[in-house]
């Protein structure tokens, strides 16, 4: 074959080698096709470890608070027993070392998440007792009168 064929061919071969070399150095070593096959499993394996190592904030373990706050467990005899401590008191993280104090949410809006009356005929929301926040003692925290750990209205009297 003549030079006019070989010269561009050399250029192409050099380009291919260059791309392959760049690919070799730039693509991470753990990049590959894993369990879910070529279409869904093409990734860096270490990305899985990143998500596995993500920090857990909420314990959502009912017994976690028991050692120090056993007096609050009266809630277990009330309808509020279904609500985890951390839903109102904030994520436990490494409490009591870090943070020392949790951020308690005492806002009216927290209670209204369930206790704003929405009488939806096909939802469980209709069965929860509610108050109109604009008429029912506006401006003061619910916990001023109601004990969230013992919410029964009869016990208030």
């Amino acid at each position: 074959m003549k030079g006019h064929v070989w010269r561009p061919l050399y250029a192409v071969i050099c380009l291919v080698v260059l791309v392959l070399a760049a690919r070799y150095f730039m693509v991470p070593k753990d990049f590959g096709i894993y369990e879910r096959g070529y279409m869904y499993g093409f990734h860096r394996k270490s990305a899985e470890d990143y998500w596995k190592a993500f920090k857990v904030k909420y314990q959502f373990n009912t017994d976690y608070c028991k050692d120090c706050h056993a007096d609050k467990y009266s809630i277990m005899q009330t309808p509020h027993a279904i609500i985890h401590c951390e839903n109102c008191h904030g994520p436990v993280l490494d409490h009591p070392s870090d943070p020392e104090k949790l951020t308690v949410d005492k806002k009216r809006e927290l209670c209204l998440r369930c206790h704003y009356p929405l009488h939806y005929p096909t939802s469980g929301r209709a069965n929860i007792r509610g108050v109109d926040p604009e008429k029912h003692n506006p401006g003061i925290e619910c916990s001023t009168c109601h004990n969230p750990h013992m919410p029964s209205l009869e016990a208030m009297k």
Partner: protein
Amino acid sequence: MISRRDFLKNAIKGIAGLSIPLSVIEIASPRKIFALNDVKAGVRWAFLIDTHKCVGCGLCVKACKTENEIPYDANVTRTWVERYVHLKDGRDFADTPKGGRDGFTTSKIDLGEGHYQNIDEKDIDKAFFVPKLCNQCENPPCVQVCPVGATFQTPEGVVLVDRSWCIGCGYCIMACPYGARFFHPVLHVAEKCTFCYHRVNRGLKPACVDACPFGARMIANIKDPGDPVTKIIMTERVNVLKSEYGTKPQAYYIGLDEEVR
């Protein structure tokens, strides 16, 4: 002038030469093939949502945003709660203010752009709440479209995003038929529900599942026939969202209504 014999000889040589580089690029290793055919992987996470139990308190959204470090006041969320109101005159309304993060503390429907629709309780035929999250599809379209391999499915069926590899092109956000993906407002990479991959791998349940006081959200290993939630999925009447797309979503719903999309 090239003879027919030479032409055929050279053609065979040329084809043989061309096929060598292809076989060099992909050498089939037996271990890889074994891994692909490994059916006893043992874990495949799926989700079950009982819409009858959801009261729209939004504690799941609050817990999710805190657990997964999604900026709390940004209007993006990995899981969200939708409200559906069907009136007696046939009109349908649906809203999800702030993704339901603060619950639903008004009977008015948020129409967006500061407009609200007053609803008279007497006009309501049916109204209910539907929690939504990533369906962790068996055939995830968001993974197929990624041009750089930054999103993928783990052996447990969870679709994850490789934050350091994502280039932020947004194809996956467009490809998801469920609107489950969004841009992380701080990191500027694609973001999505991971079924709390860090929690389920430590033997905990996802934050939204634990946060729900009413037990509306459940997680199941559908490869474990003894799993109580798997039993519900296998034996009771459940439905999935947009099955017509062929994505094989793995978030199952009890009490899914026609209007829910």
